């Protein structure tokens, strides 16, 4: 047994190799992650430190991060995480040096400025652009429904009319093809995330601007109207169906004419549903435009108890430039972060170029970067699910959710 244990011992790096360790749960982006190691070799020539990337499965990554960061042992020197969670709810992050903060604040699109910040202090370097929903349409289904795929609906009223034309029903009146692939299953946080563009289009917001109150916002008249509209898509207008599975697959199976999803989705479509001809547009507006916003602001954070934190900041400084930003994101086929890179040939050649531009030009929607954002979005999402499944009416469901959210904020 000892022999077997010895034979199967893990591959260890030579003892003399100095490394800074990076943890990430972005398994979907292996080339993006590997780039840190490649760049680390270049960095090692002047610092003596290479970069080791540890990719952690998304399912359960929080538990692993927490155990290591609390234990201060076997922990990463820097990691991919959400600022308000790891720096706000927990106090694990080192503040960004002023020069680096200046570099990033001057080079990010405006909606991304708060991504690396918590309570006015800057901790994280945003790494994901395009993490906001856009409208994907199925060109063939649009044409079949007598709609022009080059003239997408611009307002929610136009959009609803288009969804009705795209929906096809059987003899019993149940949809066999829907206008909109709606997310109705899974974690309530995901449900909230998918509903928020509608809420923001109605001029609603989930929390007060100071992020200290839900009542009056999560259950405000705009939010109630938005949830009425959203629930009606399933129950009254029947342009979305609970009988269909997850929305990505429904759209990929040509059973829905429209889906709202982030920029990663067209890569999935090309691989899983190559015969779907699609176009990407900005989300429709109502009282307001949904704009570029997200619930999951991923950024690179430096562990404050790392013995190598200065080396890590040096490394991050080393890669904080437009050229590296473009190179790293292009390798993986995702949108770069720096504003200047949004007009490069690579980005201009992407199917989401025009829609990204349009959405970035819209006013920045509210953000909910609160340490308890997961709990808050869970409470809110449960109300949305209840309405979609006909278990409650929008107003009382949102009243209950707002009260719960206030208790969470108070605790």
């Amino acid at each position, binding site marked *: *047994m000892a022999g*077997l*244990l010895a034979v*199967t*011992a*893990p*591959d260890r790096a030579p003892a003399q190799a100095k490394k800074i360790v990076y943890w990430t*749960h*972005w*398994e*979907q982006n292996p080339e993006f992650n590997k780039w840190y190691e490649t760049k680390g070799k270049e960095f090692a020539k002047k610092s003596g430190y290479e970069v080791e990337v*540890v990719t*952690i*499965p*998304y*399912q*359960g990554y929080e*538990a*692993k991060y*927490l*155990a*290591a960061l*609390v*234990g201060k*042992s*076997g922990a990463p020197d820097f990691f991919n995480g959400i600022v308000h969670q790891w720096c706000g709810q927990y106090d694990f992050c080192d503040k960004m040096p002023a020069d680096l903060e200046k570099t990033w604040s001057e080079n990010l699109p405006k909606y991304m400025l708060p991504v690396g910040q918590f309570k006015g202090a800057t901790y994280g370097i945003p790494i994901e652009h395009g993490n906001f929903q856009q409208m994907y349409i199925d060109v063939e289904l649009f044409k079949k429904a007598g709609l022009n795929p080059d003239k997408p609906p611009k307002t929610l009223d136009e959009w609803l009319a288009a969804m009705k034309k795209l929906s096809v029903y059987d003899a019993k009146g149940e949809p066999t093809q829907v206008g909109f692939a709606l997310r109705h299953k899974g974690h309530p946080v995901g449900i909230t995330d998918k509903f928020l563009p509608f809420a923001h289009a109605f001029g609603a917001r989930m929390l007060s601007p100071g992020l200290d109150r839900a009542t009056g916002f999560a259950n405000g008249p705009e939010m109630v109207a938005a949830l009425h509209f959203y629930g009606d898509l399933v129950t009254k207008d029947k342009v979305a169906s609970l009988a269909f599975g997850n929305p*990505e*697959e429904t759209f*990929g*199976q*040509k*059973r829905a004419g429209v889906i709202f999803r982030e920029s*990663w989705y067209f890569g*999935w479509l090309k*691989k*899983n*549903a*190559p*015969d779907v001809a699609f176009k990407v547009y900005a989300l429709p507006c109502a009282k307001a435009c949904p704009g570029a916003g997200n619930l999951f602001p991923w950024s690179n954070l430096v562990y404050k108890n790392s013995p190598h934190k200065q080396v890590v900041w040096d490394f991050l400084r080393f890669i904080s430039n437009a050229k590296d930003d473009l190179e790293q994101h292009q390798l993986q086929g995702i949108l770069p972060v720096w504003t200047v890179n949004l007009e490069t040939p690579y980005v201009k050649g992407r199917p989401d170029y025009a829609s990204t531009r349009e959405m970035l030009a819209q006013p920045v929607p509210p953000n909910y970067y609160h340490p308890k954002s997961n709990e808050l979005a869970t409470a809110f999402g449960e109300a949305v699910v209840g309405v979609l499944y006909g278990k409650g009416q929008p107003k009382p469901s949102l009243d209950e959710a707002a009260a719960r959210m206030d208790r969470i904020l108070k605790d």
Partner: protein
Amino acid sequence: MADLPQAGGLLRGAGARSVPLARWLTAALVAAGALTVIFPFVWIALTSLKTPPEIQRVPLQLAPDHWGNLENYREVFRRAPFSRFLLNSALLATVSAMSSLVVSALAGYGFAKFRFPGHSVFFFAIIGILMVPFQSVVVPLYLWVSRLGLLDTYLGILAPDLVSVFGVFLMRQAIEAVPDDYIAAARIDGCGEWGIFWRVILPAVTPALATLAIIKFMWTWNEFFWPLVVVNSPSMKTVTMGLIGFTNMYFIEYNLVTAAAVLSVLPILLIFVILQKWVVQAAVMTGLKG
């Protein structure tokens, strides 16, 4: 009276017909149950032979377009050192099962056949550990393993799995059923305590040992959370970590996850086929269900 034999004949006839009918019904129910259990495995195996667009196709179809399409299996091994994951899991599950057998058999023997001060208290304290959710002890356990320098090592992964509380309970129940007269007879014949344990007790509880071996092997094989917490190196990952690697924050790669699932189920199936005779015996003997 003349009708009686006819009536009896009718009854007998009905009985004669009802017996095969009952058998057919039972067989049909068992077959339906078996199909229900087997179908997901068949579906997984067939899906592992499909391309992503085939999987997404509507209406869903059971059979793959090309039965010989093993590209997903190749991709699983290309994407990650999956054979290494299988080896790691096999090693960890084997050591964990063996260690649990030794400790559980000894402890079970002690609790079943010896009376000592605090006997019941100790036993229920051990059983009480079953009630503690593992998640609640992860951080202290992590700190302990980390301070011993066992992070990212086989011993670190094995630490919570070397002893099985369930095993202690199972073996105590099994050994209690061994008649005390056998032990007394062995003692009279001059057998020492080790001799009794080795020559009398263990042979009498072979089915329970086999059951524990397969259950513990399966539990360790399927374990995900603890290895996730203590493992960093790709070469130390287990099968479950490899499997979950095909599910990311945005989507599931069904073609790859099913291929990996087929690979990960095969060793468990093999172990079960080898030990199934004893497992059934033990299930009957100990009243285990499910």
